[in-house]
């Protein structure tokens, strides 16, 4: 019984504190009231003994005077004493009223404290319930929040994935575009190159024909040029067409034929130049093969 109460007190310190204080105050007031009534039961101004009986004494003038003075003085003292008593009574009355008021108040307070406790308990209960509710709510919210977070995370992941996919697609498209561009460029370049090569080839063909014409025109065939003559002469050409070196390669002809060939290629200098400088060749080998 005591343990449970203690437990309760511990759990309700404010309420217990208040009720203890209340009991103490009430106890103190009860003791004070008793002593007040015991010590001055007649001094209570409110009970009609405002004039106490006076002992008469004859006195000469001087004595009268003295007596008068003394009476006066006593009167005065009595009056002072009565005023004092009256003040004291009033004071006590006031204190009692105050105590009563306080008691009432305390009662009130006690009552309100009890109801407060109940209220508090109810409140506590409510609070507990609320708390539970809140807890539940919080849990629910936490769950919801988690679900929400999960959802967000999922959405975020999805978004990221989508973004990644988009980026990948973009990269792919970019790459494809680049590749297509490169392919197109390569094709254009290949075509240009092909055209250029064709042009060079044509220029070279024309050039070679012009060279053949000039060298042939300058080759005076010796009368004894043998059938099946096959002589090579290597020449080095400047871009101007000037033959700077003519070196005889293999030759099955006589020294006269060799002379005629060397003379022909030198006399043909400067050789024609190609219309396209790229068709130019610095090294040329002439094969003198008449009749082939």
């Amino acid at each position, binding site marked *: 019984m005591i343990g449970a109460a203690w437990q309760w007190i511990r759990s309700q310190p404010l309420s217990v504190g208040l009720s203890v204080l209340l009991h103490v105050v009430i106890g103190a007031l009860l003791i004070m009231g008793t002593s007040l009534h015991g010590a001055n039961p007649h001094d209570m101004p409110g009970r009609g003994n405002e004039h106490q009986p006076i002992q008469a004494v004859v006195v000469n003038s001087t004595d009268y005077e003295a007596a008068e003075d003394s009476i006066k003085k006593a009167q005065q003292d009595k009056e002072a004493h009565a005023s004092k008593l009256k003040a004291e009574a009033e004071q006590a009355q006031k204190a009692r009223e105050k105590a009563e008021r306080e008691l009432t108040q305390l009662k009130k307070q006690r009552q309100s404290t009890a109801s407060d406790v109940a209220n508090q308990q109810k409140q506590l209960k409510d609070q507990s319930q609320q708390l539970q509710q809140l807890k539940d709510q919080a849990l629910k919210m936490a769950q919801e929040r988690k679900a929400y977070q999960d959802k967000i995370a999922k959405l975020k992941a999805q978004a990221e994935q989508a973004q990644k996919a988009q980026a990948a697609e973009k990269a792919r498209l970019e790459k494809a575009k680049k590749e297509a561009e490169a392919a197109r460029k390569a094709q254009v370049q290949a075509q240009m190159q092909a055209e250029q090569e064709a042009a060079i080839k044509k220029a070279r063909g024309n050039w*070679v*024909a012009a060279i053949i014409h000039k060298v*042939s025109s300058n080759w005076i065939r010796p009368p004894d040029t043998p059938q099946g003559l096959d002589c090579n002469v290597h020449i080095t050409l400047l871009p101007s067409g000037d033959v700077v070196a003519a070196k005889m390669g293999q030759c099955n002809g006589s020294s006269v034929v060799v002379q005629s060939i060397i*003379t022909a290629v030198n006399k043909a200098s400067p050789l024609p130049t190609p219309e396209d400088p790229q068709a130019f060749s610095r090294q040329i080998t*002439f094969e003198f093969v008449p009749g082939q």
Partner: protein
Amino acid sequence: MRKLVLFPLAAVFAIAAAATARADLVIKITQGVNQPTPVAVVPFAWNGSQPAPVDVANVVASDLLRSGLFAPLPRGKMLAQPNADSKINFANWKAVSVNDLVVGSIDVTGDTAQIRFRLFNVYTGQQLVGYSLPAKVNDLRFAAHQVADMIYQKLTGRPGAFATRIAYIRHDGTGKGSTWDLVIADSDGANTQALVKSSGLLMSPDFSPSGDRIAYVQFENDQSHIYIQNVDTGQRKIALKHAGVNGAPAFSPDGKTLAVVLSTRPGDPDIYLLDLATGQLQQLTHSPAIDTEPAWTPDGKNIIFTSDRGGSPQLYEMPITGGKAQRITWDGSYNARASVSPDGKSVALVHRENGSLKIALLDLATGNMTMLTNGPTDVSPSFSPNGAMILYSTGSGNQRRLATVSVDGQVHEELTGAAGALSQPVWGNIP
């Protein structure tokens, strides 16, 4: 001049060349030109107290021109006239497109001249020949022909035949006052010398292979005789003196036999072989037709002669050992007077075409005949000893002259010579 025809071929090789574009460009030259080689023979410097009796460079240039293989630059086109001691500026010669250049100097001491000459390839600057040869001042012309021969040989690879002699018959005057001379001259017709002077008809001279003797026909009292005369001493002897026609003597390549024509019966001349050592005569042909104008093949094994045994004069060939004569000319109704080339591959002859007598060349291997002259009276062809030219007579009457034609028919040159009708030329061997 043959035109250069090379455009279709050029296209083909252009393609071939383009195919090997990146490597060394290889270009085939399949055509050349058949043109005389342009040369320059600069007047030789003459270092002598007397004026030069002969323009040596001019003789050389004329020889080269006559060969048909060279086109000497006229002196007026020479930008410089260097001599044997000059430093040559080849640009001067490239500028006038000559392939080869001849410069020379002649230093005279007393009656002896020293001819120094140099031959250069203008385009390589290379000296092909540098030579110094002595000569008598009064024999400078022949020395000039020797210079021409050396140049010719160097540039053609063939021996030259300018320093050789020719013989021919000169007929002057008419009727009873007529005279006939057997003339010997340089190959260009200059430097003439009458070896035989005769009031009777002279015919058919022929040099011995060594050139020291000449066989010929002389009519005396309407009788023809065949004489052989030493060129240097003038001594002569009758080789044949038969009744009837004695004609057309021809020395064999070894000089030991003389082919002759005899007509023991009127109108039936035949070819005989006369052994000069023994005087023995051997009949070669036996046809009833006319067989005449014998010519030896270079190997001395066969005789090519003219015969009308087929109805018209044609050339036949038969071995000197006898046997059947083979007809070798088939084109036209008149082919006569054979002269066999030194290499034995072709025959120069007289061909009649539309009444015009022309010198023609017969290829013995193919039977193809090429006209070398235009006529109308070109006769008596005789090959030069190097086979590059043919000497013949052209024109008629007192205007009959001697001329040469190159074997490709490209160059015709009339020879200088004495007045009178010049006929029956024969070209002597290279000494």
